[in-house]
């Protein structure tokens, strides 16, 4: 007996997350988390194989999001391909009714989404600087020789967080080293770093935004208890970390898939056979005019199934995913 589920896929720079939502209750039935490691297609196939092996799910709809959403959409036969801002908002609204502010911090980017009456009214993403994203915390944890999982727990022990410059990770790092050499405790330094990251986030991404409760904190960095406490202190409000904070994008994609299926009927999912197929991506530079577009062809078992990248459109596939970014 196989249970009907919606599949949500979030292929990001660092991790690829798959979520299965029960088609009736829309609760998370299963989730798979794998590192992307620069090979989105292979990673996706591996993650799908994990699900296929369990042999207990029937996929009735597929949604993709994340920076490789278009690629994942083509490989899987997605019913909806959506940007991650919308996907995160949909997921947060689903798990936390009445949310008005979403703080999302991932490996490479951070965003803030403002909602009013259940609709996105404003959003911001980090622009010119990656300070305050997961990668920096990862790097500092490694430098201090502590596992990233323990970062938050240690930071919570702090009684007097030290002041660390948050504007730029280069300044932050030299400040941290300085404080460490003066003999401040590890807990105080880590807590100080959390405060600095939060200050940086609020002044850059949150600039000019009206932050109202409920506030939901999601993305990989939400695992860090120290960051959550720093946000609560800075905002003077409760910050909710949802149970599945690390796969909210994928949950959003699955919810959007369920919405699309309700409207359009049958899924376009290619089936679990995709784990067996051989995919190649082949890129070339078109020389037909001075634009010299970089074209990418996605080849499945020797046949081009999608192509994108041309400005004039002549090499684009007829597939609905072929357009610039596949809006939908």
């Amino acid at each position, binding site marked *: 007996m196989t249970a009907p589920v919606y599949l949500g896929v979030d292929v990001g720079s660092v991790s690829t997350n798959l979520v299965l939502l029960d088609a009736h209750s829309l609760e998370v039935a299963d989730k798979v988390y794998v590192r992307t490691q620069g090979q989105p297609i292979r990673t996706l196939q591996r993650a799908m194989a994990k699900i296929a092996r369990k042999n207990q799910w029937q996929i009735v709809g597929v949604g993709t999001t994340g920076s490789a959403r278009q690629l994942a959409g083509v490989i899987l036969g997605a019913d909806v391909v959506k940007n991650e801002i919308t996907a995160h908002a949909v997921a947060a*609204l689903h798990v936390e009714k009445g949310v008005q502010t979403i703080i999302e911090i991932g490996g490479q980017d951070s965003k803030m989404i403002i909602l009013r009456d259940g609709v996105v009214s404003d959003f911001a993403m980090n622009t010119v600087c990656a300070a305050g994203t997961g990668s920096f915390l990862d790097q500092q944890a490694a430098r201090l020789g502590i596992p990233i999982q323990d970062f938050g727990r240690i930071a919570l022990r702090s009684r007097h967080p030290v002041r660390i410059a948050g504007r730029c990770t280069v300044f932050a790092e030299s400040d941290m080293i300085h404080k460490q050499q003066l003999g401040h405790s590890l807990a105080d330094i880590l807590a100080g770093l959390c405060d600095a990251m939060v200050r940086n986030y609020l002044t850059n991404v949150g600039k000019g935004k009206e932050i109202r409760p409920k506030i939901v904190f999601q993305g990989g960095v939400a695992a860090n208890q120290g960051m959550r406490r720093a946000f609560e202190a800075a905002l003077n409000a409760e910050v909710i970390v949802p149970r599945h904070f690390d796969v909210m994008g994928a949950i959003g994609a699955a919810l959007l898939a369920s919405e699309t299926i309700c409207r359009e009927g049958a899924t376009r999912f290619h089936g679990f056979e995709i784990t067996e197929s051989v995919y190649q991506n082949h890129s070339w530079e078109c020389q037909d005019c001075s634009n010299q577009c970089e074209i990418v062809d996605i080849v499945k078992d020797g046949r081009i199934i999608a192509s994108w990248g041309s400005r004039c459109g002549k090499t684009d596939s007829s597939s609905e995913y072929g357009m610039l970014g596949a809006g939908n």
Partner: protein
Amino acid sequence: MKITFPHMGNLYIAIEALLSELKFDLIIPPPSSKRTLTLGTKYSPETICLPLKLGVGNFLEGIELGADTGLMVGGRGPCRLGYYAALQQEILYDLGKEIEFIVLDHPKEDFVRFKSQIIPLIKAGGVKALAKGLALAWEKLVAVEKLERTAHYVRPREARPKAATQVLNRALQKLRHTNTVGGIRKLCRQECDHLRDLIDRNAQEPLKVGVVGEIYTILEPFANLDLEERLGYLGVEVLRTVSLVQWLKNNLILSSLGLYSNRWLRINARGYLHASVGGHGLESVARTVALAGQGYDGIIHILPFTCMPEIVAQCILPNVSVDYQIPVLSLVVDEHTGETGFQTRLEAFVDLLSRRGQGGLQHDSACISWS
């Protein structure tokens, strides 16, 4: 004398018409590309804005093709553009490129210099050729903008994706080889009809978004990562608020005669900004206010990193957005050519606008929605 000049969108078509009529040898640099950007950033000051860097790249690519004279605009005012001609010339000298510069100053700001620079141009071809060249250049500029405007209208409604862009590009190339005023007008009419034939009659009424901001980043598709096209494919009708035809009419012709004032801009921006802060800073604020009143769904504000006038506007626009209930997305462009993040922001913005347009909450018993 072999003249080259920096690109700004399709402006080269008008410059080509004028200078070839004056019998100058003209070297049109290749369209701005990643190579142009690489060359430009390598030799430009780090914190200067993208228009200068791409301009340096264009000059270097023009010089490679044999150019010995550069054509550039001058000017005064709070925006740094006014001294870019001098700066670019210095950069090129330092690289050992012995290139002469013709700098076109605003006649009102420095008439003597303007005269001294315009005289060699007149001498080259005679007054009659200059008059004809100016007429052709003007007609072509008008035609280019009309074609582009039509493409903005057609893209979100077209039956076959990217068809309008293909027709537009072919029309622009035909326009380059048409050299009578009558011919230009006829071609423009025909091609606009041709573009409108691409409309799918059953297409939904698209969202309408106004693009405000710094003139170069609005007009140069390489700098704005094809912003207008991307929006078109996402089903958005774009209104480009910057028009060179209008700008030349207002700031060159009327203002030289003392007939133009920016009064309507100041009236629209009242309460937010009371003075010209250079570039298009005041325009960005005033246009946003004006478009909010005209039923536009949203505004995209585009600026190069470190652009002072537009940073002023960027800080004011969130207030306009709240007061007039119109979403505004500010996009800062710089050297990054990573398109994914750019596309994500545009898609999310278009989602925001369309969900808003639907009244936001859609309750359907079987389907989940946003709340």
